């Protein structure tokens, strides 16, 4: 594979050195060496713009939202609801009623599992997930199966980590009620053909939830164009804070679903005899939400759009190609996941050195990677691997970072002989 940058037809070209100055954490050292952060797939770092937005809000505008008539409460409410509108634009939802703030992707999926799936599904119904899902897009559905007696079906992949669309079609039937798939595999980087998956599911009357945690930071996501019914993602993989995420749901579906958690904000009137629920999106946001998190997420979206998501994707694609080419030169390295369509992730193993030992040695060299099963144990079992090393790239990574990884792998070979 050639290590050349893909041609960017339009949009701004990234000045990575300038981008790096937006991320103060990148200046630190680890074990006496400059930090090489290749774990953005687990959590990305935050630019100053996000840190400032959160600090500004906490310093000058904080109060509880939707409650007070006083100035601060109104300022906080405006900022929080402004963030919701920012999110709506970012993923091109039709209405802010379709944007539910949650703690993260995991909570978004659980919300759909418990309020859409659980009340509707029964024995004989089927839920389809893919073989490369994160545990967060497996376990909530298994719980629904236990609760309702419905069945979980698994759409297979091949050894390269590609989604087998034709096999998926064979699983679809009128029994299929829900299809839940990742947009981008967190363990391998495979991009799934979500639009086709959605169209096929809809033809059978099933609804589709997309786990977008790994897709939103690396591609332009348009929920209307995808046609999906639900789309969940996290703020902290998109240069935003932890503890904030988004569940998009088509308005008519969200309207038809019962609330999930009860509490303040999700009600209109409460008496001991009868409570009436609030409308969307408040119905699904019981209790005081993560206000500063939502504001930080909105700032992160501003930041991403200021750089241009296409420019970010092209930059990361170049790094993935370079890393793949460089790693393939090292004897004993096996790239895991070789689908042609990949985003931002290179997963690999090194013969004779367990991924955890590699992780420790790389850390010693200042290189932060993820090692382990990546919360995708069924996928690892399918691949016959206990674990892999995953290098994941973000807008602030450089060719030098890739070469630091390569050098650190050389060090591992030295230690283990």
């Amino acid at each position, binding site marked *: 594979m050639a290590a050349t940058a893909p041609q960017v037809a339009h949009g701004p070209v990234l000045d990575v050195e300038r981008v790096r100055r937006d991320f103060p954490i990148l200046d630190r050292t680890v*074990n006496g060496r400059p930090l090489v952060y290749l774990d953005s797939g687990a959590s990305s770092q935050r630019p100053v713009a996000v840190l400032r937005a959160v600090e500004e809000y906490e310093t000058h505008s904080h109060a509880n939202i939707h409650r007070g008539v006083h100035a601060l409460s109104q300022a906080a409410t405006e900022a929080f609801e402004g963030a919701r509108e920012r999110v709506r634009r970012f993923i091109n939802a039709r209405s802010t009623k379709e944007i539910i703030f949650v703690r993260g992707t995991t909570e978004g999926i659980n919300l759909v599992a418990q309020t859409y799936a659980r009340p509707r599904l029964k024995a004989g119904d089927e839920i389809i997930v893919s073989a490369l899902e994160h545990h967060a897009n497996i376990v909530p559905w298994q719980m629904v199966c236990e609760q309702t007696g419905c069945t979980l079906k698994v759409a297979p992949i091949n050894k390269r980590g590609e989604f087998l669309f034709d096999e998926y079609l064979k699983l679809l039937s009128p029994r299929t009620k829900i299809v839940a798939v990742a947009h981008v595999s967190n363990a391998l980087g495979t991009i799934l053909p979500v639009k086709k998956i959605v169209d096929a599911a809809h033809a059978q009357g099933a609804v589709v939830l997309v786990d977008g945690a790994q897709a939103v930071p690396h591609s332009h996501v348009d929920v209307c164009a995808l046609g999906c019914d639900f789309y969940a993602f996290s703020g902290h993989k998109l240069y935003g804070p932890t503890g904030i995420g988004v569940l998009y749901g088509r308005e008519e579906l969200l309207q038809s679903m019962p609330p999930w958690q009860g509490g303040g904000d999700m009600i209109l009137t409460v008496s001991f005899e009868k409570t009436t629920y609030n409308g969307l999106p408040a119905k699904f946001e019981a209790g005081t939400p993560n206000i500063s998190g939502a504001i930080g997420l909105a700032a992160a979206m501003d930041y991403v759009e200021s750089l241009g998501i296409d420019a970010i994707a092209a930059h990361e694609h170049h790094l993935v190609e370079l890393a793949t080419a460089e790693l393939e030169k090292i004897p004993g390295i096996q790239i895991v996941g070789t689908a042609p369509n990949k985003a931002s992730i290179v997963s690999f193993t090194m013969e004779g*050195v*367990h*991924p*955890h*030992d590699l992780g*420790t*040695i790389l850390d*010693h060299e200042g290189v932060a990677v993820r*090692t*382990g*099963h990546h919360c995708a*144990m069924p996928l*690892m079992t399918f691949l016959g691997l*206990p*674990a892999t090393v995953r290098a994941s790239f973000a807008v602030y990574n450089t060719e030098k970072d890739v070469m630091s990884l390569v050098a650190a792998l050389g*060090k591992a070979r030295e*230690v*283990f*002989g």
Partner: protein
Amino acid sequence: MDLKELYRDVILDHNKRPRNFGKLELSDSYADGHNPLCGDRLTVFLKMDGDRVEDIRFEGKGCAISTASASLMTEAIKGKDKADIGELFEKIHSLLTRQDAVADPSLGKLAALSGVREYPARVKCASLCWHTLNAALEKGAATVSTE
């Protein structure tokens, strides 16, 4: 800190050529150990003579630290009785977790694991085999988890 403090020659050697590796036919008891965080899995098989470990073997898949630790453990406890093993367990536990611990001379080659305590994320790798051994000693067959 030098990586060689963690990956000493003894560790690398026992990782590459683990001793007492494989199934123990006709074992009296065995236990499975699992570290869900990193996927390490191993099984410890015991053949007992009363309170004394007459023979021990292990098999499984794990990182260098967990494999070497299990290999070193099997060498150290073969022929020992439960009371001796209990004492050894305490000593190894303190070696792995206490910054000020001085390796007890009775630990022998096990002292090579002392570098692990500088890497808190790896302590569980080294201790998995010991917890699994305890489970095997206590009740025939069981699965232990480090989580």
